[in-house]
């Protein structure tokens, strides 16, 4: 089984300056699987991905990729090892055109390969294709997200880190993207994905990891979790009003 592990967090402590977000976090991700990272807002999911991709330096612990410690490696090195990252929020170069954004996405590949692959990627995202020579900042929220996902796929990564791809995407596009990820996984790509769209994500994922306050609270097969009667309570709020202090928000306002 051991050589089946693609990514391993071993006792990682990481955070922003003196604010430690992840405290002795350990988990493993199987090669060729789609692993979901779940948890409430502020749990530290994005921090996990940022640490993995070297944007935050871990204070302690090891981060293993195929058994090799990659803690402290530069983004360029990580990309060379086949990892790609789609961060949360807006990550485009607004004043450059859509096409130029794609070109920069392939900067580690060289211009020739990039230009060959761009049309392939655009096939998945017709909206983006239509706007190829617009300024990136002029795109709608969802179009921008599509462009970002496309930009990462250009690299044909072996490991794809993707932070809430569904933000801003319309349902049909979400389905398409999920299907695409499944196809990639089937071809051997390891996908580590953060999602709040828990139900649909669980349906397409293999494994699920849940974080809370930077702590691992659960690591299960996605199918098991989906079948778990507690899932409603855990992730979906069960439809009732949240809030530790009790009382509804509305009453607070009145």
């Amino acid at each position, binding site marked *: 089984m051991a050589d089946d592990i693609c990514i391993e967090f071993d006792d990682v402590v990481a955070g922003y300056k003196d604010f430690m977000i992840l405290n002795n976090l350990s988990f493993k991700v199987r090669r060729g699987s789609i692993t979901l990272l779940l948890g409430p807002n502020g749990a530290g999911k994005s921090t996990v991905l940022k640490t993995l991709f070297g944007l935050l330096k871990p204070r302690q612990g090891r981060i293993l990729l195929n058994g090799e410690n990659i803690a402290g490696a530069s983004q360029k090195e990580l990309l060379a090892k086949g990892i790609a990252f789609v961060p949360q929020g807006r990550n485009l170069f607004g004043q450059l055109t859509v096409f130029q954004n794609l070109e920069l996405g392939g900067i580690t590949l060289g211009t020739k390969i990039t230009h060959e692959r761009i049309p392939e990627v655009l096939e998945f995202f017709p909206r983006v294709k239509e706007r190829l020579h617009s300024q990136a900042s002029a795109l709608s929220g969802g179009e921008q997200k599509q462009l970002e996902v496309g930009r990462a796929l250009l690299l044909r990564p072996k490991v794809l880190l993707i932070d809430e791809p569904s933000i801003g995407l319309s349902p049909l596009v979400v389905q398409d993207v999920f299907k695409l990820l499944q196809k990639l996984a089937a071809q051997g790509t390891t996908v580590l994905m953060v999602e709040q769209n828990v139900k649909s994500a669980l349906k397409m994922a293999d494994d699920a990891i849940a974080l809370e306050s930077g702590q691992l609270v659960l690591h299960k097969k996605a199918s098991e979790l989906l079948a778990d009667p507690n899932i409603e309570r855990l992730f979906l709020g069960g439809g009732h009003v949240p809030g530790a202090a009790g009382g509804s*928000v509305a009453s*607070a306002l009145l």
Partner: protein
Amino acid sequence: MSNALLKVTGLKKAYGAIQAVGGVSFEVMPGEIFGVIGPNGSGKTTMFNSVLGQITPDAGTIELKGQNITGLSPLELSRRGVGRTFQTLQVFGKMTVRDNLIVAAQEHHGSMWSRMFAPGDSGLGDKADALIDQFRIRHVADSLAGTLSYGQQKLVDIAMAFMAEPDLVLLDEPCAGVNPSLVGGISSLLKELNKTRKGSFVVIEHNMDFVMDLCHRIMVMVEGKVMAIGTPAEIRANKQVLDAYLGN
């Protein structure tokens, strides 16, 4: 139909050759929760921004409670009791979460001159604290909003829109990036405000469970045009909408 709260007629906005909004008309009734859905790039956000004075539409009129508000500034709209959230995160990054909420409502209390002598929190501290608790951001209440996670910032943004108790709130993808348990919370909040204060809402959202459960009526936009307006059940049953947007 003249008693509509918000009435948009023939709204158009083009960017060069791209007709982002191509003649949209709809009405929102007092006390209504009105959903807006549609594929990416169908012009929802552009429609919002035109209604809210953020951009100038090429054509069309917008009426609020029967008064023409076309071309009014966002400020004027806020004064007339229209609140909003943004699709992109828009918080005050270098202010604490609590101050973010306080500043969201303070300008609705007293005149500019009287505010010069008002207490620092304009007496809004309790209200802010209540919302902070409801949105489960108590532990970051004194952090600078810019250092919060994506979802937390989104929550701050939504909470801000409610601080001043507007009559009409336009929300652009409020659930994006928000944990499902809180999505339920937002839904309940809107319903409750709708019931108790007759608050009206226009919501753009790609989360169908949320929209279908919450909205009284839904408008579907495709390619800058209205494809359909109807109750959730009607929309769910609309073949065209399924093909263009919802899938399966």
